[in-house]
């Protein structure tokens, strides 16, 4: 009986402590997420400002908005071509690449063939190989194939699936019970049929994850197109944007840089929001957690 009192005191103080911790957690989350998201709002804000308004104290939003930044950007470079090129590269490389990754992952997870294990080890080790080590001979190959200054060089190497994506999908395919394959086989399904009608529908979250990674990667890819592409109307958006690098104009260009950044970032953010539910689930379910 005597001992109940200190315990209640302790539990009240524990409750107060818990509430304080919760408040702290929320404060940190709100503050932190603002720090991560607010710069995008500023990007849009700056994109409709004149340079003079950038550091004007007390100005929250410019009125009237300087939409002419966008028309200047549009008229400075062949923006339509850049967007078109980026779109072609991203869509072809991502869709065909992810499909190929599914095929290869299926091969590594379900089909026994000689050298299976060794090839998988090779695949894993290429994930450790920095892509840039091979860049110079790659450029020579592209030259021999006549792909210099062409987006073909950006698409074809990725059509094999990509080691990291294959790895993620293979790990996920391994968790699907083999009994399902056997059931489908007794129903007369071919190997491809099993992949398309059994494995892939069950792997939607993993495929979404890989597709998002691939989409983002292709859209933002910078090094390879920088090295390969040359003519103004053959550039991708990521490389074309470089025309707006400060150079001799210095700070005069900041609003134009923001305008083209909004154009470049817009599609990828929209795509991410569309896919994000599957994407997050996919990461939780796949073996990416290590």
């Amino acid at each position, binding site marked *: 009986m005597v001992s109940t009192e200190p315990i209640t005191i302790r539990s009240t103080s524990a409750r107060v402590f818990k509430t304080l911790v919760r408040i702290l957690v929320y404060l940190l989350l709100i503050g932190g997420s603002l720090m*991560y998201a607010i710069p995008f709002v500023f990007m849009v804000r700056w994109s409709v400002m004149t340079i003079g308004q950038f550091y004007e104290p007390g100005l929250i939003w410019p009125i009237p908005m300087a939409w002419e930044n966008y028309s200047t950007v549009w008229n400075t470079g062949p923006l339509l071509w850049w967007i078109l090129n980026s779109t072609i590269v991203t869509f072809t490389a991502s869709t065909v690449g992810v499909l190929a990754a599914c095929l*290869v992952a299926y091969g590594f997870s379900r089909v026994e063939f000689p050298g299976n294990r060794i090839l998988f080890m090779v695949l894993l080790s290429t994930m450790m190989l920095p892509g840039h080590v*091979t860049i110079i001979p790659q450029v020579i190959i592209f030259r021999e194939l006549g792909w210099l200054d062409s987006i073909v060089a950006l698409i074809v190497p990725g059509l094999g699936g990509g080691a990291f994506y294959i790895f993620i999908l293979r790990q996920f395919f391994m968790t699907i019970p083999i009994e399902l394959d056997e059931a489908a086989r007794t129903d007369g399904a071919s190997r491809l049929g099993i992949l398309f009608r059994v494995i892939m529908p069950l792997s939607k979250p993993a495929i979404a994850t890989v597709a998002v990674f691939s989409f983002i990667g292709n859209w933002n890819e*910078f090094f390879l197109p920088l090295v390969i592409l040359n003519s103004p109307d053959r550039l991708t958006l990521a490389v074309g944007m470089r025309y707006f690098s400060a150079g001799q104009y210095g700070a005069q260009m900041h609003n134009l840089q923001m305008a083209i950044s909004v154009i470049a970032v817009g599609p990828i953010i929209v795509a991410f929001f569309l896919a994000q539910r599957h994407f997050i689930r996919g990461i939780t379910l796949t073996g990416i*957690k290590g």
Partner: protein
Amino acid sequence: MLFVAPWLITFIWFTLGPFIASFYLSFTSYRFHDFPTWIGFENYTRLFTDDAKFVRSVLNTLYYTAVHVPGIMLLAFFVALLLNQKVRGQPIFRTAFYLPSVTAGVATAFLWIVLLQPNGLINQALGLVGIEGPRWLTSTAWAMPALILMSFWGLGTTMIIYLAALQGIPQHLYEAASVDGAGVVRKMWHVTVPMMTPAIFLTAVLQIIGSWQVFTQALIVTNGGPRDSTLFILLHLYRTGFEYFQMGYASAIAWILFVIILIFTIIQFGFARRWVYYEGANER
């Protein structure tokens, strides 16, 4: 075998072949429009005895890696812990933290150029707490910290991997720890961290590989300057190979980069046995 053919073909054609070829090219003098001439170890000798910029670029990249990798892992771990607290609106917070990783590239670089101006948003924020911010991008001492600061904005993927791992820790382990009288700190140290080691190991390997290959920020935000203070290995490789067209020499740089990353990766795998805990590994 047919199923793995797409990967195998592109692997041989665009990875294995170029990998071997670049090793050969690193022992030649090759200017892209002529034939490679064999010069033995000359490129490698030049790298270490007669190319101050290369040595500088290695040290710069090492500096970046040494701060960026532990920094981003701690930060991502902390954010993942916060997000794992069963908070309301968790998806919104998660998206906010992940967003910068979606837009990585030239647009991010442009944005940070503006943020890092002497009277830009970051220095204004520092001013609010009474700190006078440095001239980030034009100072040899502050340009590298500026790029590292910028890199912390891209913690999204690491954070998501940690969050997934945290959610995968079985609840009964925490209950058992509570029964044994463990407090918050001991639960963290004896349950959370050990169960997270595979994820920590994975992200450490990936982050180190990535951080040795920093390029876009260095080219767009600082262009290696001021006075080579942000000259990274890859930027030096790019200039040597694709601006001066010394492709044999650039191949030697590429191979040094490869060996550095290989050594780091091997060391990490070597130590992994001592600290990475794989659930059920004993039964196997």
